[in-house]
């Protein structure tokens, strides 16, 4: 265990681009590596990914391990797990981070089983106890009511998946130097029991929440599905996307993919309206990094006001129609539609 050294980040590549969460993790990993005084490495698998290796270094890594192989063209648990396990057993990192994306979580779970080590899911805070060389991975627990710090004392590497958009990426520094290590692995297509037949991109869906500039989100405080229509109306008038809490999704007022929060989407819009939302930590985890948060809620003690840039204590059913009216007049006056920077 003592021989394990270094912080690793799994670099997820989709469509020839590095996923944002991988860059965020290089930023977070840089801090851990500096504290521990060890190198930070990126681990990148795929076909034709070599040209991206420099980006990993610009984002904070000292080293990049690259496996470039036709079998790794599309993500599959079997091929990626095999590649990652071979590297981890050869170079023995002490900390290994993955983005909590579908592929990142899938891969980390399989790798942890094969390496017989601990894995903390959906981490939102990372720190390290330098003296004990222990990763402190904290995550919302039990439906998000409380935070738990998970430790892995005796097994290495210490592994965690980390939620997208909760850590900060560093500004890309094109002057940064690092080492690119290309690994040749023997991977054979005939050993793979799974095949990717088709990949279908649904671009509209991604743009609708995770990348929206403005989101109008509603909670149970809207009363019923009729009341919730006001959320849609306001969003329509200002050209925003609609989101909601787990409660409203479970009540059937919104689709699953419109849920904002720990078990839904993590969002980082410029403006986030939280209307009739009390602000359970689980929801807050998914939206707290929004630039401007406006909360409207009847309950003056609602925790959402602890997060909101501006808060209005009041009845949403009374306030939103007024807001809609104002926006409508404004756009008529200006002769155009809302647009966002």
């Amino acid at each position: 265990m003592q021989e394990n050294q270094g912080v690793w980040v799994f670099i997820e590549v989709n469509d020839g681009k590095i996923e944002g969460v991988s860059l965020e993790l290089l930023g977070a990993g840089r801090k851990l590596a500096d504290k521990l005084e060890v190198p930070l490495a990126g681990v990148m698998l795929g076909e034709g990914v070599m040209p991206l290796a420099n980006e990993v270094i610009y984002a904070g890594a000292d080293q990049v391990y690259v496996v470039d192989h036709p079998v790794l063209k599309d993500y599959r648990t079997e091929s990626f797990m095999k590649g990652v396990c071979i590297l981890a057993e050869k170079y023995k990192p002490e900390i290994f981070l993955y983005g909590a994306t579908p592929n990142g979580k899938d891969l980390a779970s399989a790798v942890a089983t094969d390496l017989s080590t601990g894995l903390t899911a959906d981490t939102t805070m990372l720190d390290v106890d330098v003296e004990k060389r222990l990763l402190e991975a904290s995550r919302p627990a039990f439906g998000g009511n409380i935070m738990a710090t998970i430790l892995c004392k005796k097994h290495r590497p210490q592994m965690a998946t980390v939620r997208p958009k909760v850590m900060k990426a560093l500004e890309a520094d094109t002057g940064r130097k690092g080492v690119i290590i290309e690994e040749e692995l023997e991977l054979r297509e005939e050993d793979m029991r799974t095949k990717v037949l088709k990949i279908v991109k649904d671009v509209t869906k991604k743009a609708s929440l995770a990348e929206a500039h403005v989101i109008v989100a509603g909670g149970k405080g809207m009363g019923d599905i009729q009341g919730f229509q006001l959320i849609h109306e306001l969003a329509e008038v200002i050209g925003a996307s609609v989101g909601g809490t787990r409660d409203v999704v479970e009540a059937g007022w919104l689709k699953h993919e419109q849920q904002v929060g720990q078990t839904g989407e993590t969002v980082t819009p410029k403006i986030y309206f939280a209307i009739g939302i009390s602000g359970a930590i689980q929801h807050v985890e998914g939206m707290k990094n929004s630039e401007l948060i406006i909360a409207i809620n009847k309950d003056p003690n609602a925790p959402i006001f602890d997060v909101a840039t501006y808060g209005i204590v009041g009845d949403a059913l009374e306030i939103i129609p007024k807001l809609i009216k104002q926006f409508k007049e404004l756009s008529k006056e200006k002769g155009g539609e809302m647009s966002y920077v």
Partner: protein
Amino acid sequence: MHIVVCVKQVPDTKIIKINPKTNTLDRRSAPAILNPYDAHAVQEAVKIRDKTGGTISVLSMGPPQAVAVIKKSVEIGADQGYLISDRAFAGADTLATSYALSKALEKISKNNPIDLVICGKHAIDGDTGQVGPGIARRLDIPPITNVIEVSEVNKDEKYVHIKRKQIDGYEVLQSQLPCLLTVEKEINDIEYAPMPNMIKAARYEPVIWSVNDLEDVDKTQLGLKGSPTIVGKMFSPPKLEGGKRLEGNPDSQVEQLMGVLLERKDLLKLNTANS
């Protein structure tokens, strides 16, 4: 086809309370339910069995009262159930849980080879999603997570076609059988349980195995002992910097808010082409 669905009894996290003094869960405050994702897993198994024929077993690990979620699964349409229940399993993290469940699956498979294992995407009390892929690795079968549709099951040529949810769309995969799927809620709608299932469920007594009923078990890999991760501490989430409250009557509040938004031209800019 022999389909095994892994299910878990969980506290309903929407209702559970935290003791503010000790920062621990008051488990008695919440009713125990079948993990909602697992209900969809059982429902999907029923849909597949109704097409291909065969049998559905459910497997759970937990205290004796977890027989309730097996009965619930029988209500949805499972044929039989197994509960592994023993103090030796207590305190297991995902690594130790996947080990214990895989040992039970090996035993179940001896009598009736397993073609397909289905799990919920994750349990709502742990939210990790790690046990499913862990089981698949231990059984050395391919895992496919985040499944939103099982479009084809070919039991003769032993493969499945599935749709897997991705960050920005979905992918269609083909996997050899046996394999393990973890399913999303949108895969199906839970149907009303037919009366005969309800009667069967009410009378059903699942098989209960202790650790000694399982074979070739390395006890050091079970429970707390076999769990590499531990909870270091629990704490309330950090308070974020709260902001300004807009005072006055609703009209004035709305006016102030409009003022604030219009001022932030870096965030919102009106299309002023005509003005």
